[in-house]
Each structure stands twice: as C-alpha cells, then as structure tokens.
C-alpha cells in the first residue's frame, strides 16, 4: 500500500512540475521535464550540503501535491494537438497491442527485484547510498577503495529510484522497476504526440507500435524497458533533445522549443555519460545550420545550469578498475578494429530477438520515400551520422576486450539511436502530406 502511494506521489510530482510552465505540451513531454527538474533539483539540494530525509520529503511532497491540486482545479489546460474524435479499429488495434506490451513490462517489473548486473552495481547501489545517507557527499562516493563502481557517473536514475524509496521509507527494489515502465509510457506518449503533428492517429500509432514492440525492450537482459539501468531513461531524454531541436530547426522564430531542449538536455547529461557529448552535438549542429544568436544564448544558459554537476563530477573519483578512453587505443586497433567493430555491429543489428527487422525496414522505408524525390531532413540525418560516429569512436577508444564490450554496450546503445532513425525516416514522408494539404 505504501509503495502504491509512493508510486503515485512520485509520478504526480514529476507530471505536475512539468505542467506548471508547459501545460500545453503532451503528457510525455511534461513528465520528462518534471523528471529532469526534480531529480536535478535533489542533486543541487545535496550539492549545497543539505541532506534529504524520508519524513520531511514525504511531508513536502504531500503539501506540494495538495497546493498543486488546488491551483490545478482553478486552471484550464490547453492542448495543442486536438484529441481524436473517435478511435477507428486500426487505431484501436494498435492501442490494444501497445497496452498488452505495457502490461508485459509491468509484469516484468513486478516479477523480480532489480537484478541485471548494471542495474544493481551502477544504479541500485547508488540509490541505496542516497536514501541511507540522504546525500552523495559521503565517503562511499569520494573515497577510493570503497566499492562503488564509477562514482562519478550521472545520478538521475539513482535519484529517481531514491525518490521512490524516500517516499516509501524503505528500499523496495521489487517495486521500483515500475517507475521505469512509466518512463517507457512517457516516451511512447512523446513519440506519438510528435508523430501526430504530421500523421493521422492511426499512422502515428503504427509507427510507435513498430518501435515499442521491439523484442529487445522485453528480453531478459539490459536492453529491457524495466531492467533499471539508465539507457531507457537516457533514450527518452535524448529523444526529447533532438525532437525539440527539430521543432526549432523547422521554425526558428519560436524560442520555446529551445527552453524545452534545455530541460531535456539536463536530463540527458544527468542520466548518462554519453549525454554530454550528444547534447553538445545537438546544440552545435542546430547552431551550425540555423546561425541564430538565441541558440548560443540558450546553450550558454544550459552550460551555466550544468556547472554544478560538472564541477562536482570532476571532483568524484573515476572507477578504479575501469580504464579510460584513449586515442592511442583506437590508433593501435587501426583498420582491423574498425572491421571487427563493423562485423559485430551487423550481427547486433540483425539480431531478430532484439530488433526484429527494424534495421532492415528503416532503409527500405527510406527507399520508398525516395521514390517521390523527397528531401532528407538534414538536421536529423547529420545528428544520426554523428551519433553513430561518436559511439563507434567510444567503443574503439575503450581499452578493454573489444568483442565483449561491443556485445555488452551496443545492443542497448542502439536504443538511443533507434528513435532518431525512426523520426528521420518518418520525417522523410512529411513533405508528401504537406503537398496534399496544399492541394
């Protein structure tokens, strides 16, 4: 019962925080903004030297939700995208499929506690440290020799899980995985809402269903939606970053997408190490293609907001067993390393048990769109290419067993890449619709 109250409390806080200033966005966007803002807020609170305790946090949460409910009852929310007037049976079928998969994710979350190795050592342990100590500022994070793998790793997932534990008042890692299922639902909501800007509900749901039924999201390994590691939350935030970037790219007169992009960038950087470089690429590419001073101003603001994290992260020790990336390693591997990497990637991308035929479909769909000589979206295409190059470089620069490392990392990292590929391809069909609308 306590877990159930904590579950609703946590998710209502996220959603309501996102709704305060972004009431017109769809649920997934608002939820993501809330997750980034609240968990980064916890970090800043700790960074100031203050601790978080279970009792006071529960009280603050209850009061906040009460006040918000009172204010919310006096407000009317606007929705930019009008809801469909009726659901036809095609849409109904896709919704049914997505609901069945959602149920499967919940069953997986409820069946076992956190148990995938990275979920335990990378995030579960840090969540426990946070709830017991109330802060990251204690020896477990700072003292070399105490076993806490990668102490300087971004903390959004540990804070998110610890928030649930703080509200429950105990470590309940058999319930916390449901939070990851909610992130998956928010991700779905965001993707459908974005597709709805150009497609009908049934077509949007079909695109989304193709993505959210990917078998890898439900396998018993770390690609699983509810495994508890940071890759799915990261993919969610990264989707928010490039989609808000895309909105601005399409309409540079509107500043608002850049504001949303800042918040999702914070989520991205604070969830996974890859986030820093990818976020920098998304902002840099946007500036390179649009050349608006607003982009630089907003990027500067983002940098300022992230200064506390970067300063503290640089003071935390790197894992004492994990080797560091080096260009020498990549140079030593040379051409052979690249060939080995390419072969391993082909095996991963054509693994039907994880991807079905997703990576065959994407080029096939692209060719279908090319028949009508539609232009490709430069922003998304370049971003996808850069992301693939960066990921390849990281893999080749890591001085560890290459085969094992690719096998462990790339299946889940490709879930960061897949939404970008999905939107690149779906966007390639957009001009046809615009022409039809004009006609």
């Amino acid at each position, binding site marked *: 019962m306590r877990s159930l109250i904590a579950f609703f409390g946590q998710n209502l806080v996220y959603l309501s925080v996102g709704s305060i200033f972004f009431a017109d966005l769809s649920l997934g966007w608002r939820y993501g903004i809330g997750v980034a803002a609240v968990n980064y807020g916890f970090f800043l609170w700790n960074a100031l030297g203050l601790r978080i305790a279970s009792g006071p946090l529960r009280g603050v949460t209850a009061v906040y939700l009460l006040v918000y409910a009172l204010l919310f009852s006096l407000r009317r929310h606007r929705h930019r995208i009008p809801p469909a007037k009726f659901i036809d049976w095609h849409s109904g079928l896709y919704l049914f499929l997505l609901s069945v998969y959602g149920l*499967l994710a919940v069953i997986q979350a*409820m*069946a076992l506690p956190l148990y995938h190795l990275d979920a335990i050592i990378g995030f579960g*342990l840090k969540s*426990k440290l946070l709830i017991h100590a109330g802060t990251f500022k204690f*020896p477990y994070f700072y003292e070399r020799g*105490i076993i806490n793998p990668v102490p300087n790793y971004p903390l959004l997932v540990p804070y998110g899980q610890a928030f649930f534990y703080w509200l429950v008042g105990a470590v309940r*890692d*058999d319930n916390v995985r449901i939070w990851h299922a909610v992130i998956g639902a928010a991700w779905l909501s965001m993707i459908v809402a974005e597709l709805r800007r150009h497609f009908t509900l049934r077509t949007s749901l079909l695109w989304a269903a193709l993505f959210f039924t990917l078998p890898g999201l439900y396998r018993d390994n770390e690609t699983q939606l509810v495994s508890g590691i940071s890759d799915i939350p990261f993919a969610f935030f990264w989707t928010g970053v490039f989609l808000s970037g895309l909105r601005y790219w399409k309409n540079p007169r509107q500043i608002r997408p850049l504001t949303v992009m800042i918040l999702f960038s914070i989520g991205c950087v604070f969830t996974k190490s890859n986030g820093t470089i990818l976020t920098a690429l998304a902002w840099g590419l946007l500036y390179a293609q649009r050349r608006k001073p607003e982009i630089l101003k907003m990027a500067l603001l983002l940098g300022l907001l992230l200064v506390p994290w970067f300063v503290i992260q640089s003071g935390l020790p790197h894992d004492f067993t994990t080797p560091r990336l080096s260009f020498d390693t990549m140079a030593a591997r040379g051409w052979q390393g690249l060939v080995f990497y390419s072969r391993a990637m082909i095996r991963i991308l054509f693994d039907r048990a994880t991807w079905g035929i997703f990576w065959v479909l994407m080029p*096939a769909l692209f060719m279908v769109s090319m028949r009508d000589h539609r232009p490709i979206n430069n922003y998304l295409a370049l971003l996808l290419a850069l992301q693939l190059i960066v990921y390849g470089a990281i893999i080749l620069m890591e001085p560890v067993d290459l085969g094992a490392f690719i096998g462990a990392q790339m299946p889940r990292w490709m879930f960061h890449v897949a939404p970008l590929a999905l939107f690149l391809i779906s966007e390639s069909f957009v001009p046809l619709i615009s022409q039809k609308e004009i006609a």
Partner: protein
Amino acid sequence: MLARIKTVYSDLPVAAIVLLWMGLAVNLYNVIPSAAWSISIFRRTWTMSLQEKYALLYPALYPDLEKIKQRVSEKDTLWLVSPKEPWHINYYLYPRTLRWGSPRMDDVEAIRQAHPSDWVISHNTLDPQKDRAWVYPPLNEKRSQP
C-alpha cells in the same frame, strides 16, 4: 485490398504501410519467448516476499549473504577478495563498508594480516547458480564459513 489501405492510410504510401505491418508482425512473433518466460516467472513470484525473490535469483549466494549480514554488524568494514568484477554483493551487504582487497583468492590470509581488525569476504564467481561467498572474521576471532 491495396486500394482499401490507400484510402485508410492516406498519409503514407501503401508500400510503407505494408513494410510497417511486416515489422510489427516480426516483432510480435519474436517477443513470444520473452513474454512466456516473464509470465511464468511472475506466476511463481507474485506471492513471494522480497527475500524469497532474492533467494530465487541467487540460490547459493543469497543464503550466504544473509548469514554474513547476521554476523557482521552494519558499522563494520569488509575487505573483498574476488577475481571477478562487478562486485554486486556490495548491493546486498550495504550499509556495511566493502573495501577492495585483492583479485586473487589466495590473498585472503594476506589481506587478513594487513587489516587484522576488519572482516574479509571472498566471493568466487558471477554464475548465479554457483555463486558463493565466505567471510573471515577479524584475526582475533575464530575463522568460520557461513
């Protein structure tokens, strides 16, 4: 049939719709093993306590850890001797402080000598079925195994 698809999905070419349906069908087929496995696990575990679920995950290791938790107080420090990372047992032993000792199982006595007032724990493998842990008390106490 194609004309019908074209009417219903006016915003995408028919070929694209057919490809998307193919992808969806392949996804549905390939998720069946995971779904069957998850449902069977859920049917076994939904009435279990958290401790029983841990014991199911680590049939050999978890009873060892429970015994270690009973013997070693939460304020104590343990030095880990383990050849295999990652050291996930820390997750179950927290808030006891687990410090890195050595990757060589033969080093247990040397680590005990080096830290005579602390506990030493050795952990052999990551295989969930064979995973075991042994604890060695501070040198002024008698050696024992869980």
